[in-house]
């Protein structure tokens, strides 16, 4: 199967741009994700639980400068789906990493506090100590070249369990479905 753009064509919708103050939709948008199912690269450390339900808590990492780990790109399933050999022309794979401080309400990513581009390994030790006893969201993606042209994968996150609960947006940014961890008290 040929790799495709992530969003379907959305024809016929009336274009608009507006600012809304809408606090109540978050509960719906945060919940209902498939247990263990992820989009993008799967984290190896810290381990992921579930976004909603059992394992909802943020996983406590082992230090204020944890080493985050994730699977390498391309994965077996990427190669298996690549019938046209696009990934055979793939070079210069690196990784982008972002960490967001979680908000106090809904534990939603509130502020991007750490970002790295072009990491060459599938792990990264946070360079500056994070704040103790704070909840964070994090995500990672691959950046690479195909025939010399830059490409990225989608930011990694939990998969929706029920597409009907996505709400009106094709994406919410920053995503409430990024992975989560909490730093130790000290």
């Amino acid at each position, binding site marked *: 199967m040929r790799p495709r753009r992530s969003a379907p064509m959305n024809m016929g919708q009336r274009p608009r*741009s507006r*600012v809304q103050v*809408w606090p109540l939709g*978050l509960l719906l948008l945060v919940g209902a994700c498939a247990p263990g199912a992820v989009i993008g690269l799967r984290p190896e450390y810290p381990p992921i639980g579930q976004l909603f339900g059992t394992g909802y808590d943020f996983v406590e990492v082992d230090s204020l400068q944890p080493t985050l780990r994730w699977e390498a790109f391309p994965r077996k399933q990427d190669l298996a789906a690549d019938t046209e050999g696009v990934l055979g022309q793939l070079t210069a794979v690196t990784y982008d990493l972002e960490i967001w401080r979680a908000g106090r309400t809904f534990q939603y990513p509130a502020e991007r506090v750490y970002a790295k581009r072009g990491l060459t390994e599938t792990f990264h030790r946070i360079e500056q100590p994070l704040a103790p006893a704070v909840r964070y969201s994090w995500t990672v993606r691959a950046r690479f070249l195909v025939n010399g042209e830059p490409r*990225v994968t989608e930011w990694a996150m939990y998969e929706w369990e029920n597409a009907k609960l996505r709400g009106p947006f094709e*994406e919410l940014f920053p995503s409430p479905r990024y992975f989560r961890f909490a730093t130790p008290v000290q």
Partner: protein
Amino acid sequence: MWDVNPPIFLFLDIQLSLLRAADGTVLYSRRSAWVSAGRPLTAWGATNAEPVRQELERAIRYLAERIVDVVFLLRSYP
């Protein structure tokens, strides 16, 4: 329990469309939203609503990055 001064979130709702200049055909369309951290209404309104302006600037910057990603860079794999 309900908070008497609950956090309020700023949503920036955008409709991204890529049109063919020759005939206006929509080649790509996507609806996205930015959501801010929650703040009490009084915090949003402080210093003549400067936090609202700052948050809008931040949202536009992030969404601009995202538009570049989805239109020019993003490839999805299973």
